[in-house]
């Protein structure tokens, strides 16, 4: 067979074919990190090679970012909003998903469809009227506005994702437990939830990632330096006037991405399975 004649040559060719894709995917992060570590002199030297550091690396930009700006406050805000919104959304999503996947009751089908439709509603469709709602709630320019509004896209996502996982837990296991005298709640807590743990981990990871990365609500509902999240702080407060401090800007972008990168490195397989499950299940 033609395919098996020269397996090694074929394999090398395959990797060469992947190389442009890998460069495309990773290069922007390489270049951001590089920029954040360069001295200003090299950064603005038009004859320097932009792909390397030749005149020595420096942590100046990071130092300035951490001590001279409110960066740490923004990170703290991001962590607070993300932690609360994720917890609340996963809990609400879990019980809703269980009901939709397992129970028969009035309105179950339309509600399932409703969850799916809400899952597709883009945040950019609703930010204008939501800003008004946030104002009425007395949460204008407060990070708590984000805690309240992030579940609007996190809950439908978690519910949709977890419905798929609950369907994979065999009904018989739960029924056995109930025959043995467990109530439905006990069966849920002791039998069904433990079996759905991979799904719940996945929901937590994605909810965390989505709220950490959220931008348009954060940009619209908050503006004071002590209330904004990391993405908004870096894109608005670090850019003032026409002079950009590229080193500091890139340092901020790198540092604020690190929490997600850490999660990502440890839970890569969950990300892969959750990405396909959210779309395909």
């Amino acid at each position, binding site marked *: 067979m033609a395919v098996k004649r020269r397996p090694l040559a074929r394999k090398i060719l395959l990797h060469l074919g992947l190389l442009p894709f890998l460069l495309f995917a990773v290069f*922007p992060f390489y270049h951001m990190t590089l920029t954040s570590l360069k001295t200003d002199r090299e950064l603005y030297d038009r004859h320097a090679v932009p792909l390397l550091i030749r005149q020595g690396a420096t942590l100046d930009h990071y130092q300035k970012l951490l001590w001279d700006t409110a960066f740490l406050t923004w990170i703290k805000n991001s962590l607070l909003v993300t932690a609360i919104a994720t917890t609340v959304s996963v809990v*609400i999503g879990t019980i809703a998903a269980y009901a939709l996947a397992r129970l028969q009751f009035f309105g179950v089908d339309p509600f399932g469809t409703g969850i799916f439709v809400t899952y597709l509603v883009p945040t950019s*469709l609703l930010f*204008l009227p939501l800003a008004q*709602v946030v104002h009425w709630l007395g949460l204008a320019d407060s990070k708590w506005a984000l805690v309240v509004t992030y579940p609007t896209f996190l809950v439908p996502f978690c519910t949709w994702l977890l419905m798929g996982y609950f369907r994979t837990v065999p009904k018989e296991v739960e029924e056995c437990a109930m025959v*043995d005298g467990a109530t439905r709640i006990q069966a849920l807590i002791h039998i069904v939830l433990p079996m759905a743990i991979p799904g719940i981990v996945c929901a937590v990871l994605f909810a965390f990632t989505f709220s950490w990365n959220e931008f348009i609500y954060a940009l619209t509902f908050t503006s004071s330096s002590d209330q904004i999240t990391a993405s908004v702080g870096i894109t608005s407060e670090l850019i003032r006037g026409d002079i950009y401090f*590229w080193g500091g800007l890139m340092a901020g972008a790198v540092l604020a991405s690190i929490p997600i990168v850490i999660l990502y490195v440890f839970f890569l397989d969950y*990300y892969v399975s959750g990405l396909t499950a959210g779309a395909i299940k």
Partner: protein
Amino acid sequence: MAVGSVRVDPAAPRPGLRLRELLDHERFLGPAFVTPALLLIVLLVAYPFVMAIYFAMSNAFIGRPSHFVGLRNFVALWESDSFRQTFQNAFVFTGAAVAVKLVLGITLALLLNQQLWFKRMIRGAVLLPWVIPTALSTLGWWWMFNSLYSVVNWTGLALGLMDPPGPNWLGQKYYAMTAVVAVNVWRGLPFFAICILAGLVSIPRELYEAAEADGAGPAARFWHITLPLLKPVLAIVILFSTIFTFSDFNIVYVLTNGGPINSTHLFATLTRQVGLESGQIGQGAAISLYLFPVLVFVVWAQLKFVRRQVY
């Protein structure tokens, strides 16, 4: 339910147990479990949506009482150049970005579906752009397209692909659109590749073996086995990507903020500019509602063709 009748615990009803028993009934437990999600959706999704429709038909302006004006906002939009330009941009941007992501996504998925060295690392690298906060990675692209220090142009010049000084990416109309499409492709390609890869993995190997035994070459196998069997996955991925590309905000806002001269504005970024920065909430809401027909189409297509088996 049949199981209820064989319960081993027929204890006499005590007042303290009433809630516990109630929770055992699906008719009660089901609605109780979906109530929090339902409240959230009604108060913070459905209600704002109705408000958006009301705003769009009023002359609402920040800090001023509003009056009903019917469809006047929509008429005014069609008379404004910036909106007509945005309308066109939205279709160019979405069409180009989704088409490129589809072609590159299939290619990448086919490559990833082979025996590879460092398989996990490669997948990790491929998925990375999708996980990092878009607003922040777009800042990196902004710097890469900088008019004086663009590393894209430096590389292009070094390889002899561009004439000095190279294009002013974000300052010229067509280049700016190319740049926002490129960043959207960069951000969305992992989703296409990973989903299509999942579709590829589920195609039974025997089909390929049988086709090969019948003398079908790689191209014939791709056209007659891979592509037809991938159709459902491709349909879902395209529909998802269409709605999220059409409603994109982050990339355009950070990279060009709609410029130069509105040539990269999308509905979401124009909504912000008109509705928040100029304070014309009514017109802003009318712009954002243009996302709605696309949403309706995607939902309809998904429910009708793709998820028939679920509901």
